[in-house]
């Protein structure tokens, strides 16, 4: 197998993610993947199931630390700081690198309190109403909920809930937002809204998104990283096959494996 190649970058790298090895217990889940994430760009992670794309994404804001047996070798540099250095608190990392999950997961509290949650954690002293409104507008949800901010977040439809989760993630204006298959539980119309929203978001934020849907990556991502599963050594270890400009990768992949995947020969 070839060594993973990083995209030629002139743009500013916000997160430089170098995975040497990720283990769950003794199981080697991901190896040798270098994914630079560029400022104000959408970086898409694609690949067949089990290829480790979600694992790598969740390593970036240290969500995997919640898994007891998780072990990370490598380094992820965010504004020059290694996020896996000993003195780094995972909680702090998650406050600067927001996350939107596969299943919409609003809290069982009012729409307003859902969005204000991060502000309250940060003991924000400014105007809450303004920030909540701004976040809801940023998530393209304001018009639908402005008259029922007191209603429970769980009372919204699936697509609205997911946009509420995006509003919750952006209310504190974190520099980076990770999205783990944010549209996979949604219907086509809601999916489209989320995709349009992502493109809006990249003006102000850096976005990394995992998707199992190649067309979605083609529609929204500026850079795409293609992961695959290596079964050559008897395991099922994910690794980065190649990464580059999305158009380039889809039209002119360097690796045969990428071409086969993109043409639908395996999934």
């Amino acid at each position, binding site marked *: 197998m070839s060594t993973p190649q990083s995209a030629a970058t002139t743009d500013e790298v916000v997160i430089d993610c170098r995975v040497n090895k990720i283990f769950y217990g003794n199981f080697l889940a991901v190896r040798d993947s270098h994914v630079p994430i560029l400022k104000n760009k959408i970086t898409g992670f694609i690949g067949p199931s089990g290829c480790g794309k979600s694992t790598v994404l969740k390593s970036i804001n240290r969500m995997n630390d*919640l898994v007891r047996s998780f072990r990370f070798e490598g380094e992820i540099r965010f504004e020059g700081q290694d996020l896996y250095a000993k003195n780094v608190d995972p909680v*702090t990392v998650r*406050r600067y690198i927001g996350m939107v*999950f596969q299943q919409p*997961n609003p*809290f069982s509290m009012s729409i307003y309190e859902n969005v204000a949650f*991060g502000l309250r*954690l940060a003991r924000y002293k400014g105007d809450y109403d303004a920030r909540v409104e701004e976040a809801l507008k940023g998530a393209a949800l304001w018009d639908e909920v402005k008259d029922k901010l007191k209603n429970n977040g769980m009372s919204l439809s699936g697509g609205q809930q997911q946009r509420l*989760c995006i509003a*919750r993630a952006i209310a504190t204006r974190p520099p980076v937002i990770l999205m783990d298959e944010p549209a996979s539980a949604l219907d086509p119309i809601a999916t489209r809204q989320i995709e349009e929203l992502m493109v809006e978001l990249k003006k102000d934020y850096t976005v990394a998104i995992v998707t199992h849907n190649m067309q979605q990556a083609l529609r929204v991502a500026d850079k795409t990283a293609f992961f695959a599963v290596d079964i050559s050594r008897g395991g099922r270890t994910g690794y980065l096959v190649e990464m580059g400009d999305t158009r380039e990768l889809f039209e002119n992949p360097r690796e045969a494996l990428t071409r086969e995947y993109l043409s639908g020969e395996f999934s």
Partner: protein
Amino acid sequence: MAARKTDQAQPGSTSACRPPTTLDTLVDRTFRGLTLCFAWLTLLLIIYIFWRIGGTAIPAMHKFGISFLTSTDWDPGQGRFGILPEIWGTLYSSLLALFGGGIFGVAIAVFLTQDFLPHNVTVVLKSIIELLAAIPSVVYGLWGIFVLIPLIRPLADWLHLHLGWLPFFSTSLSGPGLFPAALVLSIMILPTVAAISQDALAAIPAKIREAAFGMGATRWESILRVFLPTASGGIFGALVLGFGRALGETMALAMLVGNSNQLTLSLFSPANTLAALLALNFPEASDYEVRVLMYAAVVLLVITFLVNVAGQLIITATLRTGGSK
């Protein structure tokens, strides 16, 4: 018979599809009928209990009326009966127990459900706490008399000496009294509160946990701001059940509460509860006194009934709004 019919309908067929036999249907119907019967029987049983106790109590209700609830005398010799101190003692001791057992029970539930400990230690601790429920209440009573009361005496004396101006500490501990009774009651309702709160906390979906930690909440913030509000319906149910259990607890209280008919705020003073009153007076009660005691039993039943109904209503209300502010 049914099987033969199907064979005739599809002669030579290799299909093994058959309708349920008459016996299958019969068993199913009988089963459903029986479960329905049993379900209604529990309701009938409750009505029967109310009817018998209420029936026996009616003469006393006519004779004493409302004054039974507002009078503080209990003098069988003079034929004067009033249960206000017992009503007060029942509610006061149960509220104190709810306070103590509630705080500890919910705290234990949080501790055991939020991955503070390795899994096997959690399992052991859970069973130990459930064991508390298996201790007979008379043993709790004895433990209270011989261990707890001597143990808390120095603390009680100190509180009375230094904070005696507070109504809660206005008398000195004379032995059995509200404070030891409430402490033992707290321990007795602890397993109920802890077990049901644990179920409520464990039922929080994994995606909500991910959401809280994903927002960069610390464990403390996640528990306080997300998990406890999300599980509030179930936790409240646990508290109501614990309170109900405390209201009806008899033996340990009869041994520990002091059985003295006084209305008091002081934690160290002896008092009485409805259940203890019933337990201690029944054995030597005349026919006439039994009617009076039955009146007291009706009052206890109504109190527990109201508490449970109120609890149910609040749980339904919190579930509907999803625990939102």
